[in-house]
């Protein structure tokens, strides 16, 4: 049986679904990145990765605060983050995949960084002032994130046999999840017409070109997968999200309204 606290995803307004989706993307990725804290290959990389995680949690908070205002049901950012079930989360699936090994996390980050560099560049001109302001702050962080992940991709692909093998495996596992980044749900298409949202599908060719060119320097012939796994925006997730939320929401679920 599925219980939904306030009301189901489908009943929310297009703007609400749009902003909540962006918030969920940021929070879920942030949590995956934060799982490297104290587990990264060495201290300096540990701090750097945690820093990226913090950038994303900051982004998530701004989107959740706005989502809560749009919803106007008295829920706050914490309620949205900690008291919604798996099926109410609408993040794109690529963000929720377990952190895997370092190669996997870096390939995911690279794919996502390239995407957000294209996406946020457009989102800063959103006719929604709040969304535009969040995008303007986020784009600066994302430019740095890409600058950080690119040398890792090159280094690991051109490093040892083991690092290249792990990278090839990561590329192979992730290529089924990149298509969803460019899919346009109905409510988002509606918002493109009013200039609030960005047409994600229009960014795919540029993303493909960037990723393929970059990987070609390391002798990788990268092609998008024909099989694309989707469902995140509709609350249909991989088996991994539920486990992640268990851990992430444990404190608020067990000790409601608990504060640090």
């Amino acid at each position, binding site marked *: 049986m599925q219980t939904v606290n306030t009301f189901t995803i489908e009943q929310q307004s297009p703007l609400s679904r749009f902003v909540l989706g962006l918030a969920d993307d940021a929070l879920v990725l942030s949590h995956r990145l934060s799982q490297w804290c104290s587990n990264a290959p*060495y*201290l*300096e*990389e540990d*701090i*750097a990765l945690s*820093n990226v995680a913090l950038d994303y949690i900051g982004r998530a908070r701004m989107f959740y605060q706005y989502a809560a205002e749009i919803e106007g049901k008295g829920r706050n950012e914490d309620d949205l983050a900690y008291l919604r079930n798996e099926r109410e989360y609408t993040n794109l699936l690529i963000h929720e995949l377990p952190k895997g090994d370092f190669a996997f996390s870096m390939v995911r980050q690279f794919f996502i960084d390239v995407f957000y560099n294209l996406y946020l560049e457009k989102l800063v001109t959103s006719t929604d002032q709040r969304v535009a302001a969040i995008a303007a702050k986020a784009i600066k962080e994302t430019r740095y994130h890409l600058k*950080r992940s690119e*040398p890792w991709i090159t*280094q690991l692909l051109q490093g040892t046999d083991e690092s290249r093998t792990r990278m090839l495996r990561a590329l192979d596992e992730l290529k089924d999840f990149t298509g969803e980044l460019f899919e346009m749900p109905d409510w988002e298409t509606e918002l493109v017409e009013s200039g609030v949202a960005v047409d994600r599908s229009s960014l795919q060719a540029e993303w493909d070109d960037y990723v393929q060119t970059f990987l070609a320097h390391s002798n990788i012939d990268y092609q998008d997968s024909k099989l694309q796994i989707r469902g995140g925006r509709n609350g249909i997730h991989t088996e991994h999200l539920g486990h992640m939320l268990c851990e992430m929401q444990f404190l608020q679920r067990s000790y409601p309204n608990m504060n640090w």
Partner: protein
Amino acid sequence: MQQEKLAVYEVFIRSNRGLDHKHVGSLHAESPEHALMYARDCYIRRSEGVSIWVVESTNIMASDESDVESFVDPMDDKPYRHATHYVLPDTVSNM
């Protein structure tokens, strides 16, 4: 990755326009580019600086502290190297 294989870099931060870069610490990295990024994340995330230099530690030629007797001390008995050693003529008393 084995930490002992990573190079050590010294980090220098310039906190403001017009000031000098100052040594703030060191870190491990596998390339100068990474060292610069780690320095950004480790040393200036609270706006402590506007510019960073990183230098691989092995590129620094340093004086030997145990050698202080012959390297630094001889300066102490040459007071005439200090401006305060000289008595100013009365005519320049306003200096």
